[in-house]
């Protein structure tokens, strides 16, 4: 059975439906990629999953346990981690303090530094002074230390140089290979599809495509058509 199962999920924003009757699944050890143009509802979907905003109807289950009514903190303790859009580091805290906030009895700072050795020499630097790439590494590492079963990542490549994006993508692939279930939201498709397993394309709050990442990667025309509609 899939680690994360989302069925028939609808989410409203300001009373208007933004996500409608959506079905999505993520397996352990796999990356499900969610693509879609601006305003398709990707961020809304992730915020509904992690509990930042309430869902209107439908269910969200981790290992078969429904969590759609729980507060964000409870969902986190059930094994869900959400790396938000916009690199939400604790600005006034140092790199290491950011990591220590999410340190649990079962986790170790060394895991974070093993994933991103770049952060070691930035340990005592205030997070607001890190580069964009470093901040993105920090929020991913921080989420990892909560020992999640499912990791949601929203637009981690936004505004970053291609070489950094490649670096982040390979780190995320490594996490999935170690058994994590990853739901990766991206606007720029090619790289995400190259590391992902299952691909969903969203348009106006609905899933308009559900298939294999490799297949979609090899047919750019199909992808283009899905993005633009028609």
């Amino acid at each position, binding site marked *: 059975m899939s680690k994360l199962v989302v069925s028939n999920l609808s989410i409203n924003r300001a009373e208007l439906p933004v996500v409608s009757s959506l079905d999505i699944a993520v397996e352990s050890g796999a990356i499900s990629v969610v693509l879609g143009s601006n305003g398709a509802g990707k961020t809304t979907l992730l915020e509904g999953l*992690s509990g930042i905003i309430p869902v209107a109807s439908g269910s969200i289950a981790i290992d078969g346990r429904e969590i759609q009514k729980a507060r964000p903190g409870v969902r986190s303790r059930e094994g869900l*981690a959400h790396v938000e859009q916009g690199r939400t580091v604790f600005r006034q*805290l140092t790199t290491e303090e950011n990591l220590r906030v999410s340190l649990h009895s079962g986790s170790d700072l060394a895991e974070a530094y093993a994933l991103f050795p770049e952060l070691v020499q930035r340990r005592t630097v205030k997070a607001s002074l890190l580069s964009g790439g470093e901040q993105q590494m920090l929020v991913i590492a921080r989420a990892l230390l909560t020992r999640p079963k499912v990791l949601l990542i929203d637009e981690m490549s936004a505004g970053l140089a291609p070489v950094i994006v490649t670096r982040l993508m390979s780190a995320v692939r490594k996490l999935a290979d170690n058994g994590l279930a990853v739901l990766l939201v991206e606007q720029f498709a090619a790289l995400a599809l190259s590391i992902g397993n299952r691909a969903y394309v969203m348009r106006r709050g609905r899933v308009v495509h559900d298939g294999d990442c490799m297949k979609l990667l090899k047919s750019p025309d199909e992808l283009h058509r899905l993005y633009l509609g028609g």
Partner: protein
Amino acid sequence: MNALLTSAVAGLTAGGTYALLGVCAVFTYRLVAVVNFTGAAIGTAGTFVLIALYEAGFPLWPSVLAGIAAGTVVGVAIGFIMTRWFGEASASTKAAVTVALLVGIIAIGLRLTGGQHPHNMPELFPGSAFRMAGVEVTIASVLTIGLAALFTILADLFLNNTKVGLNLRALADRPMAAELLGIRVQMLSLLVWGMTGAFTTFALMIIAPQRSPNFMTLSLLVVPALAAALVGLFRSFWRTLAGGIGLGLVEGMASSVDSVSQYRSAIPFLVVLAVLLWSQREARWDEAR
């Protein structure tokens, strides 16, 4: 000259209380992002539990502890209202809510304590600690100032050296990100409310005998406290501390000068105005550069 000094020193106790209440206000603002107008009212509620028990014949110190416990509970209750129903509200909405709560608490407090009816408030720390320039400095004033400094130092140590303190700083920085990491946000916020409730109550117990111990006047001590917090721009504990003491001293001196003494309750207002104008000027200076 000596008369002026005497009255300045007499203002120290009030100054220490303003400082302690102000530091608690800054603590609350920095950690749970609420400009709390109920600060002094929370302490007043605890103080009146002490008065009621004392008047009923209970021994003093157990009554003090019971009063502090009561103040803590009232603080947590208000914190619960603020986090449960107004957690997502803007800073100004939250401040407005605490003003409304203040009005409610004063109304209930006056009703329960018999309005202007005089109460027998025991002096917890009678006597003078030492003489300074020929003037008696009371134990109460040394204690309130000491307590304010202690709170400042402890808050600093606590925030910078413990895991709970670290979580609190994270919470103050980005509440949602903290909650997404599984931090028990609500419990932490209530801890802040409880801690400030306890300290505030003790401060008010010390100052109550020197004021008319009536629920409303004590609750309105929040005005000079917030003025002190403003001197610290709601960020710096030490500047708030200095602001509170300074306010007490100026108030004390004003009370000895006949022509201004009846306006001395306006002093916090003048301080607020001065700080606001000054910080405006600084902002304009920043823009100009």
